[in-house]
Structure formats: structure tokens, C-alpha cells
């Protein structure tokens, strides 16, 4: 049995090897299995993480130290002071805390790009707000605004991988949605930010919320104390997530190169060997995300036939969504919404899996277009 260190704390690894995730070579979906390193420490983290970290008993104090060590990992990788880091048991809650928390103070306008996540669009309906249109590349013009205004944007768009427009001239308060990628550096100026543990193959059900500008912020939730976030997160998940992030960062150099090369290979193939494709992801987008749409193709049939050939893909097309509405991101960018395929490249993605997925894609599209 091996061990893993988080700060000065040692975790015993479970039986069995820190294996590869062999069963997922055909998976190009946004979700990925837990990172093997996180999976291995999870049981030991559960053993150490059952106490209430706010109490004074020995197990509580030990857990409190462990959580501080986990916070230190997040603070280091996200380049933000440890005291600004908070754990959330519900990722989506971070949008409310980060956006509405600044709203109560100011009477300004809330600005948000049309490609923002649904949580942001929902919050916009609760306040004086202005949607920022985006161009074909997903860029928007960020106004200068005033100090009373609020801006929310994603540093990386979760569907297309598009980088955010520079918001350096904005005068108000800024919330960054960093849930699509933990390693893209945040802009120099921000006031609150949110990360999702799943984006580094950490356990689901854990959000990391950072609050830099406390003086302007008021907890938007009903409360009797000074706590900034509800304490309902699972400490074991926070510990395992920190281990997963460390491992993700360690692998980053290799996977970043690999993703870049797979990304160009896929772009070239769908354009030259399949054709009539609208690539929504800008050329300089985050390489692990790639969204493109095939003209005259029904995405539901496409996804279904790819699944039968052993490849799991995501889609933003209306026919694949629960409410039969097309992806608001594609629609806002003016991109083709039908026949859409959204790929997420993982550290386990191989040359072979990319090549065979592309061959399958070509033959499925030919079948569907000739039907």
C-alpha cells in the first residue's frame, strides 16, 4: 500500500493499483471518472474526515488542520490567499453567493455575456441587468460601467473553450466563473470566483468559492452568524479534491501538449475529411474543449449511433436537451445549433481513441446525410 501527502498529512492508499481509467477511452463527455489519486485517498479521507471541523475535540481539530492544508493547495494553484477560499457542497450556490452577494450593496447594473451559464442567466432575472451580445468567436464588448456595477463572466466558456474578453477597464465588481478549467489564470482583477471540482477530475458535489473583496460583500442567504458560506460540504471530498488537483497540475504539461495536438487533428479532420462543419470553438480556445456542428445532421441520431460504436459525446443541439431548446451559447454566437458535437479531452484520451472516434464520426455523418 502506498501513501500520498497533503501538506504534512499522510494518506494511506487503498488496495489495488492507482490504475488507468481503461474503460473510458471512448469517453469525450464533460464528466470524467474520479482521478485515480483522489479515488485512492477517498476512503482514508472519509476515515479522517467524519468529525465536525468547527468543534474542539481532537478528531475535529485534526480535520480542521486537514481542511486548512486542502485550502492551501487550492490557494496555491488558484493564486489566491488561503483565507479567501471557501468550500461549497453545492457548486451552483457559488453563483448566487458571488453575484447576489455584491448586489445588495450597489444599485448599479449587472452585466453578463450572452454565453454565460444558466445559473447566471437566472440570477440576471432578479436584478437590473444587461445582457452583453457576443460575436462569432464568443467575444463581447465589456463596458467600463461604474463602481456600482457588477460583471460576471467565465474565464473559459464551458461549451466552446473560448477565452473571456479582457475586462480590464471595468470599474465595478467582478465575479469569475472558473468552473470549466482550473488552470487558466484568472485576470489580475476580480472580487469573487467559483471553481467546480469536477473540472480537474475531482469528486462531484464540491465547489470552491473565493471571496477577495469582503468589504463590499453581504451574504445573500438568511443567516444568524457571520459565516460566509453554509457549512454543508463533505470534508472528505474537499481533501480528495485537493489531491486530485495536485495530480491534475502535475500531469498538466503532458496533457496540455497532448490536447493541443488532438485538438488540431480533430479540427483538420472534421473540416477536410467530413466537411460542411461549423466549428464554434475559436482557434485559440482552451484545447481540452471543442464544439462543432455538422450541417443537415440530426444530433440525437448522431450521438446515439456514436454511442453504439463505443463513443460517448456531448451535444448542445435542441433535440439532445431536456427542454428541446438549442444551446444558448451556440445561438448567441450565431453558430449552427443542429448536428452539434461537444468534445472534452481528458488526460486518458489516447491517439488511438481520437483516431477511431473520428473514423466512426465520418461514417456516421455519411450515413445520416445520405438517409
Amino acid at each position, binding site marked *: 500500500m502506498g501513501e500520498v501527502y497533503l501538506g504534512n498529512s499522510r494518506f494511506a492508499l487503498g488496495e489495488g493499483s492507482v490504475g488507468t481509467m481503461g474503460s473510458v477511452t471512448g469517453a469525450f463527455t464533460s464528466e470524467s471518472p474520479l482521478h485515480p489519486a483522489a479515488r485512492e485517498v477517498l476512503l482514508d479521507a472519509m476515515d479522517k474526515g467524519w468529525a465536525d471541523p468547527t468543534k474542539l475535540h481532537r478528531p475535529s481539530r485534526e480535520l480542521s488542520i486537514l481542511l486548512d492544508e486542502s485550502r492551501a493547495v487550492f490557494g496555491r494553484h488558484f493564486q489566491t490567499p488561503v483565507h479567501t477560499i471557501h468550500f461549497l457542497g453545492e457548486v451552483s450556490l457559488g453563483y448566487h453567493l458571488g453575484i447576489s452577494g455584491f448586489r445588495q450593496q450597489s444599485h448599479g447594473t449587472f452585466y453578463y455575456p450572452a454565453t454565460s451559464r444558466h445559473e447566471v442567466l437566472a440570477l440576471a432575472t432578479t436584478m437590473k441587468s444587461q445582457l452583453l451580445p457576443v460575436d462569432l468567436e464568443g467575444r463581447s464588448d465589456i463596458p467600463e460601467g461604474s463602481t456600482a456595477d457588477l460583471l460576471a463572466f467565465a474565464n473559459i466558456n464551458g461549451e466552446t473553450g473560448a477565452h473571456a474578453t479582457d475586462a480590464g477597464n471595468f470599474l465595478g465588481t467582478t465575479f469569475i466563473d472558473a468552473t470549466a478549467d482550473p488552470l487558466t489564470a484568472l485576470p489580475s482583477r476580480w472580487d469573487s470566483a467559483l471553481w467546480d471540482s469536477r473540472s480537474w477530475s475531482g469528486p462531484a458535489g464540491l465547489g470552491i468559492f473565493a471571496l477577495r473583496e469582503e468589504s463590499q460583500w453581504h451574504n445573500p442567504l438568511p443567516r444568524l452568524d457571520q459565516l460566509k458560506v453554509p457549512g454543508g460540504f463533505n470534508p472528505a471530498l474537499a481533501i480528495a479534491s485537493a489531491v486530485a488537483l495536485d495530480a491534475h497540475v502535475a500531469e498538466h504539461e503532458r496533457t496540455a501538449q497532448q490536447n493541443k495536438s488532438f485538438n488540431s487533428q480533430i479540427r483538420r479532420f472534421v473540416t477536410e475529411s467530413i466537411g460542411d462543419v461549423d466549428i464554434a470553438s475559436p482557434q485559440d480556445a482552451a484545447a481540452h474543449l471543442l464544439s462543432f456542428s455538422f*450541417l443537415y445532421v*440530426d444530433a440525437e441520431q448522431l450521438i446515439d449511433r456514436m454511442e453504439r460504436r463505443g463513443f460517448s459525446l456531448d451535444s448542445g443541439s*435542441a433535440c439532445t436537451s431536456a427542454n428541446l*431548446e*438549442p444551446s444558448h451559447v451556440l445561438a448567441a454566437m*450565431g453558430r*449552427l*445549433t*443542429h448536428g452539434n458535437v461537444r468534445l472534452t479531452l481528458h488526460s486518458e484520451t489516447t491517439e488511438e481513441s481520437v483516431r477511431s472516434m473520428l473514423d466512426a464520426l465520418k461514417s456516421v455523418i455519411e450515413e445520416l446525410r445520405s438517409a
Partner: protein
Amino acid sequence: MHRLDCRGARCPLPIIHLAQEVSALHSGTLITLFSDDPATWPDLQAWARMREKKVRQIDAITFEVIV
């Protein structure tokens, strides 16, 4: 005047039907497309960009296409 009624058809059928219709028409012909699918307007604009056609929205379910 050419009319194409795609009401009740789900994406990508309205655009596929439109493309089939367009292939038989001379350049410059005007087609009125009726479609109540929520993806039609965004897809029509994307199709027009990819195929170098002109489109405009008349109302929620009515669109004009110049071939």
C-alpha cells in the same frame, strides 16, 4: 412566390427541407419559410453564413430567404 411550410418539423428538418428547395431554384429567388422550431432562426442565420445566402425574420415563425 415560393412558400415552404415546416411547421411541426423539428431541427434539423426545416433547414434540410429548405436546402432541398433552394437547390432547385434560381439565384435571387425569394422563399418564405414557416417554422415553429426554436432552433430555426439561429440555424437559418448560421446556414446563410455558411452558404452565402440572405435571410431575415418576419415574425416568430416566418422567415424570408433570398437564394
